[in-house]
């Protein structure tokens, strides 16, 4: 077990390194002077010189990369060009909204997606199953920003159940916070659960073909018991991986919904940084997101090896 964890940790290190090199080198894929790109059209020569100095463009590439990585290892993401403040300081107040959104979306989409998927597998081939799979396909095809628009129009404008936009931090009270987050949470959870339900259904159908399921049924267990105790546990493994992987897919939804609902989270911070060409912030957030998803995938893999002894010997 420990050997497996050590192995998985070791294989993630080169990925993090590559991610760092890609993030850093992005500035050099664009033709021309990176300082001019960041400064924009209206930048004065003095401003350009300042940007060059601040970001170290006057040094050779490898030296810059080395310096940048070293600072990163010490938890220093650099300084914003626009506000001249430490990026780590700017990120802190943005964590709560995004984390809250993330936790709620994961919880609801998993609950909804897994139950719908199991329901579909239970009624495989029947009308309910087909209806649920239509939902799954629709969930893939519907863009989050349009679903958000429809829900705002229907539930916020016409029915007045939720605020159109606006965010109340947790400090304003727990329920007020949940209420202000309801629409973005619904949008992302519905779309993510469509995907999870599809995976749950196919994983369940695969397990239900196993011999031990026939044994469980023939010894007279109720169908409910067969489903929950015997089929779900092995089927949960691919489902958990998919939930882990779909976290990265949620990034789009978060960036889009944080903008629509004016939630002051990390996604909003990124979009703002892009419109201001505040490159150190873009770099820092890219690095943060990629590292986070690498850690999540690592955690999922290790959690598996713990639950399922077969994984270790693959």
């Amino acid at each position, binding site marked *: 077990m420990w050997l497996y964890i050590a192995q998985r940790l070791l294989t993630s290190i*080169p*990925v993090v390194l*590559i*991610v760092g*090199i*890609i993030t850093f080198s*992005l*500035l050099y*894929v*664009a033709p021309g002077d990176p300082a001019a*790109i960041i400064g924009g059209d209206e930048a004065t020569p003095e401003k350009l010189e300042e940007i060059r100095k601040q970001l170290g463009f006057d040094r050779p590439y490898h030296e810059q990369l080395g310096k940048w990585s070293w600072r990163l290892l010490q938890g220093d993401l650099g300084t914003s060009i626009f506000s001249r403040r430490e990026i780590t300081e700017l990120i802190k107040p943005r964590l709560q909204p995004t984390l809250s959104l993330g936790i709620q979306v994961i919880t609801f989409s998993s609950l909804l997606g897994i139950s719908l998927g199991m329901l579909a597998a239970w009624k495989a081939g029947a009308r309910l199953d087909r209806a649920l799979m239509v939902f799954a*396909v*629709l969930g*893939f*095809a*519907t*863009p*989050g*920003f*349009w679903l958000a*628009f*429809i829900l*705002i*129009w229907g539930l916020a*404008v016409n029915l007045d159940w939720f605020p*159109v936009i606006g965010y109340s931090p947790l400090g304003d009270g727990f329920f007020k916070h949940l209420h202000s987050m309801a629409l973005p949470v619904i949008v992302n959870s519905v779309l993510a659960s469509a*995907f999870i339900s*599809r*995976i749950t259904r*196919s*994983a369940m159908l695969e397990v239900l073909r196993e011999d031990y399921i026939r044994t469980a049924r023939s010894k007279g267990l109720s169908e409910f018991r067969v489903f929950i105790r015997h089929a779900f546990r092995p089927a949960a493994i*691919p489902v958990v991986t*998919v939930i882990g*992987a779909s976290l*990265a*897919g949620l*990034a*789009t939804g978060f*960036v*889009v919904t944080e*903008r*629509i609902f004016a939630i002051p989270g990390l996604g909003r911070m*990124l*979009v703002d940084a*892009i*419109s201001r*060409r505040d*490159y150190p912030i*873009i*770099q820092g*957030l*890219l690095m943060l*997101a*990629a590292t986070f*998803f*690498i850690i999540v995938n690592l955690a999922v893999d290790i959690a598996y090896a713990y639950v399922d002894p077969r994984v270790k010997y693959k």
Partner: protein
Amino acid sequence: MSATVGPAAILVPSLRDRLLQASRQTGRVLRREPTVLVGAVILAVIAFLAIFGPTLATTDYTRTDPVNRLIRPGAGHWFGTDTSGRDVFDRTIVGARLSLLVGFAVMAITTIAGTSIALVIGYSRTLDSIAMRVVDGLLAFPTILLALALIALLGQSINNVIIALSITGTASKIRLVRGAVLTLREAQYVEASRAIGSRIPRLIAVHIAPNTLNLVVVQATFTLASAILAEASLSFLGAGTPEFIPSWGNIVANGQGAVQVAFWISFFPGLFLTMTVLAVVLIGDALRDYLDPRLRGRLVRTT
């Protein structure tokens, strides 16, 4: 070709035979699977709009006309007018061209680049370990974040949207096809061909590449769907298609602020977008079930 006469030639039907067989069966599938028919009809309509949209438009869909802003859908303006007085119907049908252009371009680039790279690296251990590290690195980023950053640097244009979406799309295609190549390498008919002296380029061209075709074709439809969605999301965020070119994403963004007074601005282009992606997914699902039922569940949202 004489070298392949033998078991290999019998087991592996030629590309031409497969395409013939596929086209013959397409008609049968259309009749049996109503969802495919629905998808095909929607796509045909959108393709028609993509080709003739700008000709069909009756108004100047780029010129702002503040006097006629926020007009309700009706006889004069089927989908109403937007916050600058531009006709939403005309902008929506013109937007079809952009969506399909970006979608098909990204699909073509990622499919050709991804498949060829995967075929080559699948046969070279050194290249494979280098390329796969880069692929793993690229896939660690959420697609939209990397695309946003790239466009911020390269500048906002349709070409740069295509480039940004193709980079991560190619990476995920390499990973998928490479997996298939590694499995196919070990197949007995490949070994047999090698035993009678076939060289690596021939093994790849005759035995390996044709057998990855099913996977590549099915995945291509999902790439098309994801690329159309991703372009719309980027344009919605104001970081994709420039504002002066109508795109479903930026039309929806225009109507977002006017949700309380004019739902039609965002509703119609969003509906067209959803229907287009739905059509592609329905066709892709049917193709997958038909070509290879074992692929079920292995295809994920990419680009």
